[in-house]
């Protein structure tokens, strides 16, 4: 309606004064409008005390009600009241009706009060209930309760729903922001695993083992930096982390200690070659963040460095018969002649350059994982020792050091005793001993196995003990001949393989110590084989004759190394004898054993010769 012009509306109040009279000359005399108190009086007169007596009276003229206060009304009320009652004139005072009505109300109230006070005493007046109809069915109050409960529950539910909505909103927000993790929350997670401290405006952490008892002088501090190179417009990558750790440059990459035993003599030309190889990184737990893997790898590098530093320090300081050679990242020592133990620290950094050169194949078979593990255990033990209660002084004011060293002063230990306290094997010595033992054990097992495979009779059984020490293992060797197991029970040997020697304990209690030479063990076992055969053969001679068989012909047995004669004469008769051939195929000795025996004394000579390497005669 934009084309229509606006209409002017004028408003005028309609409160015109009433005309009282119009003069003859046309002038109007207005009634004065009622003042506030007049108005109030007018309204008060209109109050309808419906029960009471108040009859509506005519409105009084405004002039009478002029300038009459409440107070004035109150004081003159009584006078007017009495006058009004006596004369019964229409009262000229506008509050009169109000007053009358109030008075009558007061009267009624007083009556009621008196009645109630009398009724309360129950002496002169009592109240009797009026018989009522039967109560309406109880549903009404119950439904009322139900409705009210429903309403209140609805109100409570509303509040709860509101709260739940808020929670779901925040959860969905978190889900969305998961990739955009807060720096502080990530820092909190980092703090749960690593020690952090704030230096100035930098956050530094400690990944060394110093708090666990290590004495390695590396500082091992890493720095935590905020990852701000994130482009918010682009899609945030899956593995985005607002936190990044900066590890010291010499701890980058991964490292491990390689322990291997080689049989060749040390080649002087090969010394100094650095073993660079890349072992596949140990698999980190799938849920762990990338800084965790980084820090763990750096800590491992630090530990390997400490182990190697300790080993090389000892290699140089300790005096041994054959000195240990320390070259670059390798320690070469000779536990046994013609045996070489190589301990090397293999540290591969993550540079692309080194990755290319590290493609040389390393034979994993000669790496003794057991010893590497033991090295880690030993260094951790050393750490724990520095923190143990033997080192920690009790009382706290006593000087640091081993408990017995602290007592050596007051107990006047002389030099020998002090030396005995202090001397303990270093890491290198322990590892060499363990390597020796491992080598000796594997060679013993190989010897036994080779003998078992070469020689078919007698049989050798080896029961290795499951519970071993790092420096000692034991194996129980049984040599039996087939069919003579019960009799050959006496050939039981217990071999205790130590660091440098093998101790053999016979069943009858004899103890023999063998050195680490392989040949010695082999010869010894072979001699035991012969013993077993001897026992088996002897049992034949004591075997009672049960059947009679007569062989008349002479049997010749041709064997690889000689000839066995089994002869008999025909002179005697009625002699129970039998000849049986007992074939014991002994591939290395090629022996066919033919046994013949008589019930009574030997009248014919026969001889059994069997040729074997050691030319033993069995009679």
């Amino acid at each position: 309606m934009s084309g229509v012009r606006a209409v002017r509306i004028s408003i005028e109040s309609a409160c015109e004064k009433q005309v009282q009279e119009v003069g003859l000359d046309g002038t109007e005399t207005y009634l004065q409008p009622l003042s506030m108190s007049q108005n109030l009086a007018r309204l008060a007169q209109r109050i309808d005390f419906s029960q009471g007596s108040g009859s509506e009276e005519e409105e009084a003229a405004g002039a009478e009600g002029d300038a009459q206060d409440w107070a004035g009304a109150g004081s003159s009320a009584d006078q007017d009241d009495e006058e009004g009652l006596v004369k019964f004139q229409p009262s000229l005072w506008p509050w009169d009706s109000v007053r009358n009505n109030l008075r009558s109300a007061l009267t009624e109230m007083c009556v009621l009060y008196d009645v109630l006070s009398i009724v309360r005493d129950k002496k002169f007046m009592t109240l009797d209930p009026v018989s009522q109809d039967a109560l309406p069915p109880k549903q009404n109050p119950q439904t009322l309760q139900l409705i009210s409960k429903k309403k209140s529950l609805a109100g409570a539910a509303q509040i709860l729903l509101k709260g739940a909505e808020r929670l779901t909103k925040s959860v969905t927000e978190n889900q969305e922001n998961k990739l955009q993790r807060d720096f502080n929350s990530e820092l909190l997670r980092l703090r749960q695993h690593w020690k952090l401290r704030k230096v100035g405006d930098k956050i530094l952490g400690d990944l060394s083992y110093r708090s666990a008892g290590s004495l390695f002088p590396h500082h091992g501090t890493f720095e935590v930096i905020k990852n701000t190179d994130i482009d918010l417009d682009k899609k945030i990558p899956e593995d985005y982390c607002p936190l990044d750790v900066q590890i010291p440059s010499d701890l980058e990459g991964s490292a491990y200690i390689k322990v291997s035993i080689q049989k060749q003599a040390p080649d002087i030309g090969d010394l100094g070659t650095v073993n660079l190889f890349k072992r596949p990184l140990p698999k980190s737990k799938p849920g762990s963040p990338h800084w965790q893997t980084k820090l763990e790898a750096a800590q491992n590098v630090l530990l390997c460095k400490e182990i190697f530093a300790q080993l090389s320090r000892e290699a140089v300081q300790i005096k041994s018969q054959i000195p240990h050679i320390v070259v670059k990242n390798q320690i070469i020592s000779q536990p046994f002649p013609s045996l070489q133990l190589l301990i090397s620290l293999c540290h591969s950094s993550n540079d692309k350059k080194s990755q290319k050169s590290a493609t040389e194949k390393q034979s994993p078979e000669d790496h003794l994982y057991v010893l590497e593990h033991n090295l880690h255990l030993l260094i951790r033990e050393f750490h724990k020792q520095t923190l143990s209660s033997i080192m920690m002084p009790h009382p706290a004011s006593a000087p640091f050091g081993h408990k017995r060293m602290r007592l050596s002063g007051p107990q006047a230990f002389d030099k020998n005793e002090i030396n005995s306290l202090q001397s303990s094997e270093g890491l290198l010595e322990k590892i060499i001993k363990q390597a020796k033992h491992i080598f000796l054990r594997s060679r013993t097992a190989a010897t036994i196995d080779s003998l078992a495979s070469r020689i078919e009779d007698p049989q050798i059984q080896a029961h290795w003990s499951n519970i071993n020490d790092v420096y000692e293992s034991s194996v129980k060797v049984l040599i039996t001949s087939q069919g003579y197991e019960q009799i050959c029970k006496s050939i039981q040997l217990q071999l205790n393989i130590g660091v440098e020697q093998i101790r053999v304990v016979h069943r009858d209690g004899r103890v023999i110590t063998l050195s680490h030479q392989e040949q010695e063990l082999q010869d010894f076992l072979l001699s035991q084989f012969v013993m077993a055969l001897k026992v088996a053969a002897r049992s034949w001679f004591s075997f009672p004759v049960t059947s009679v068989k007569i062989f008349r012909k002479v049997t010749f047995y041709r064997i690889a190394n000689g000839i066995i004669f089994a002869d008999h004469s025909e002179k005697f008769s009625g002699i129970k004898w039998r000849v049986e051939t007992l074939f014991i195929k002994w591939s290395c000795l090629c022996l066919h054993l033919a046994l013949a025996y008589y019930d009574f004394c030997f009248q014919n000579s026969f001889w059994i010769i069997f040729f074997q390497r050691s030319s033993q005669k069995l009679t």
Partner: protein
Amino acid sequence: MGVTCVSQMPVAEGKSVQQTVELLTRKLEMLGAEKQGTFCVDCETYHTAASTLGSQGQAGKLMYVLHNSEYPLSCFALFENGPWLIADTNFDVLMVKLKGFFQSAKASKIETRGTRYQYCDFLVKVGTVTMGPSARGISVEVRPGGNRSSVC
């Protein structure tokens, strides 16, 4: 086990202390004893300070503090006719702290220094006793034990 014997060797006539000591050591070496290093035993004297003495003016007690290189981590202290004590080397530091009660007579510090020889089963120590700058005598200690060498 065994008995340790400490005795004073008389200085040979016409010779100084040092020369006598050299004589002795040469004899030992000719016998076949093996030199095994040096030893040192010293003794410091402390007397109780005047402030701790009672009003009766009793004589101050003397305390001796000894060190022996055979027991490198220990310190021995004894009163003249009284109790003795074996302690850590921190005892010296303690004595410094107790300066108020014990005054050291620095001039009366005696020590004997020399070489130790291992002769078969015996350990022989020949030492020069000095008090301050001057040599006072020769002490010889013989006891069984020590690191037995193969040469006998």
